[in-house]
């Protein structure tokens, strides 16, 4: 047990060091425009939506699952709200509630496909990624010629969500709440323990009386909730929504979790780690922009960084395993 604590602390340190190196790198290369308080608050803002959605995605990854559909789900939530806004006279709060319900339902659908129909996670959510996007196009707001329009959402009660309070943006404050709640639920509730148990060993979890399928479904429903909140803040910031909202976004929360030390094999990692990862990803994006690099480099760097981090984690894990085997610990008896 003692060594376990050490490992997680070490992994946390590694993510923090990675973040520090990245900040230092862009600080040196980007000079004045990067190292400003305004830019840091900007980075935190960019990290916020990834952080919020990262809470749900981390839960799913802890159960040894994955969700590739978050980007499309965001578009679906945004477009549903745009429809409510454009075609009904419902109050804004109700529009938001409807958006969140859509997110929850979308998450539930993912959960049922994956946990009840036993479709492998990355395939099931790859399929719903296409389905959600297609439905978004289906309900997209079109002009008289059938051409899809970007729908403005400019009512002040809504766009206030995209503004800032002092140096912090509203979305950053909400993210802090999500991260705190997410971490507490994960570490101090029975549900959190179940998530870890399901991810570490499904069979053992079943045998110890955990309803594995139900736990997995709930994790996906939480992703849906987080995505809907992320979609609300994104559209409030953009003051509009399009059918293309969130294209390629699904990568970011997964990347954030991985950088933050959440193991794709399930059973380990936490929300604070994902927060560090989210800030890491946002810093990367911000730095690339500040250095006036072609945005294509973002894709290349992101992809390479993720694979490198996962490779390092794998190396580290196999070394640990070898060490414990050499120590002749009770490995044989436990297996």
């Amino acid at each position, binding site marked *: 047990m003692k060594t376990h604590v050490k490992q997680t602390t070490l992994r946390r340190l590694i993510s923090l060091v990675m973040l520090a190196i990245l900040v230092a790198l862009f600080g040196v290369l980007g000079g004045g425009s990067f190292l400003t308080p305004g830019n840091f608050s900007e980075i935190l803002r960019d990290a916020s939506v990834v952080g919020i959605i990262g809470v749900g995605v981390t839960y799913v990854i802890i159960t040894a699952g994955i969700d590739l559909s978050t980007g499309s789900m965001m578009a679906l939530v945004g477009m549903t709200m745009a429809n409510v806004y454009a075609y009904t006279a419902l109050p804004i709060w109700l529009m938001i509630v409807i958006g969140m319900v859509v997110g929850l339902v979308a998450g539930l659908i993912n959960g049922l496909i994956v946990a009840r129909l036993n479709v492998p996670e*990355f395939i099931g959510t790859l399929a719903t990624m296409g389905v959600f996007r297609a439905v978004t196009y289906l309900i997209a707001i079109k002009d008289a010629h059938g051409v899809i329009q970007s729908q403005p959402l400019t009512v002040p009660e809504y766009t206030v969500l995209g503004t800032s309070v002092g140096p912090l943006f509203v979305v950053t404050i909400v993210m802090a709440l999500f991260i705190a709640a997410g971490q507490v639920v994960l570490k101090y509730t029975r549900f959190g323990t179940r998530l870890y148990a399901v991810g570490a060993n499904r069979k053992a979890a079943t045998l110890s009386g955990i309803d594995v399928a139900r736990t997995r479904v709930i994790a996906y429903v939480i992703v849906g909730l987080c995505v809907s909140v992320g979609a609300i803040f994104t559209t409030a910031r953009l003051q509009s929504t399009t059918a293309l909202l969130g294209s390629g976004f699904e990568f970011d929360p997964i990347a954030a979790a991985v950088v933050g030390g959440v193991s794709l094999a399930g059973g380990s990692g936490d929300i604070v780690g994902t927060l560090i990862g989210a800030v890491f990803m946002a810093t990367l994006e911000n730095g690339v922009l500040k250095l006036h690099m072609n945005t294509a480099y973002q894709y290349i760097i992101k992809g*390479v960084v993720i694979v490198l981090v996962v490779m390092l984690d794998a190396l580290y894990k196999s070394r640990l395993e070898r060490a414990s085997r050499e120590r002749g610990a009770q490995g044989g008896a436990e297996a």
Partner: protein
Amino acid sequence: MRNLNLSRLSKPIILVAFVVTLAILRPSSFLTISNFANVLWSVSVIGIMVCGTIFVFLLGGIDLSIGTLAGLSAVTVVEVIKNMGATNESVIIGVLAALGVGAAAGVVHGLIITKFDIPAFLVTFASQMVFLGLSMVITNNQIVSAREPVLFTAIGSMKVLGFPLPIYLMLLIAVGSWFVLSKTTFGRGIYAIGGNPVASEISGIQVKRSTVLCYVFSGVTAAIGGIVLAAMTQQGMASTGTGYETQVITAGVIGGVSLLGGVGTVSGCIYGAVLMGLINNALNLLSVPSTQSGLVQGLVIIVAVAFDALQHQDQSRRKARRILGRLGGDKANESPAA
């Protein structure tokens, strides 16, 4: 056994029903030579790619990068041709370079997946972005056209005996892939690995080396798909090939490939590609916007894979019951370790 015959017959029945329905719904546009050519082109690109990716499917792996890898190869070939002045040699060098890109991508995927034991979907999901980024950097986000020389455009548009060249290419690759899978020890080993990697390792199959080779096949056929796409459209850009990964997965799944590994045939995949091409064509002819293709593909994938998973579960449950029955146990709720 009766069940088996029925499921065998179901494939041609679905195909014929599909064609007849389309012919009735859109007689004037479906039953034309130009539409026929359209279907075949669409089929050939999916078919070429699925013939390589099936190796990865059989392992129980996945390659999500084939779409953007096809894009990167398309961009590579058109850039080489453009920069070498559209000579015939440039076509050969460009094609070789694109194939090299595909093979290299496969080697990298395979090595990362096997050396570090990382889930294939993550590696190929990440590399998907890397390939897209590289294509964007190479083309500077522009469309690069390649209308010359004829040697290149012929790859996409030449007709032999009334059929477009890519169809022959697809058949050639299909035969090659069928041969490797069913007539060589390597190929039979792939099925074994997908069925049970641990047992395969113990029985002397070189699992790691075979795995790398499978990803190389997937990468190379993705590259060929990209070259064909570029030749057909006489241009290359970063978004060439986007979305083909889902089409190829759908084609495989329609053709009876189990994404859980170990099950699937090349002929099934070609059938899947043909049906996929027809589905694309149907959506087109029925004026369903292309943005809706994800809906169809997604639903097909979910239904097919859920059905496959159900059968899989049934099988292992039956096996468990048999084993437990032999042992004289009375509880058979749980399947044994797969």
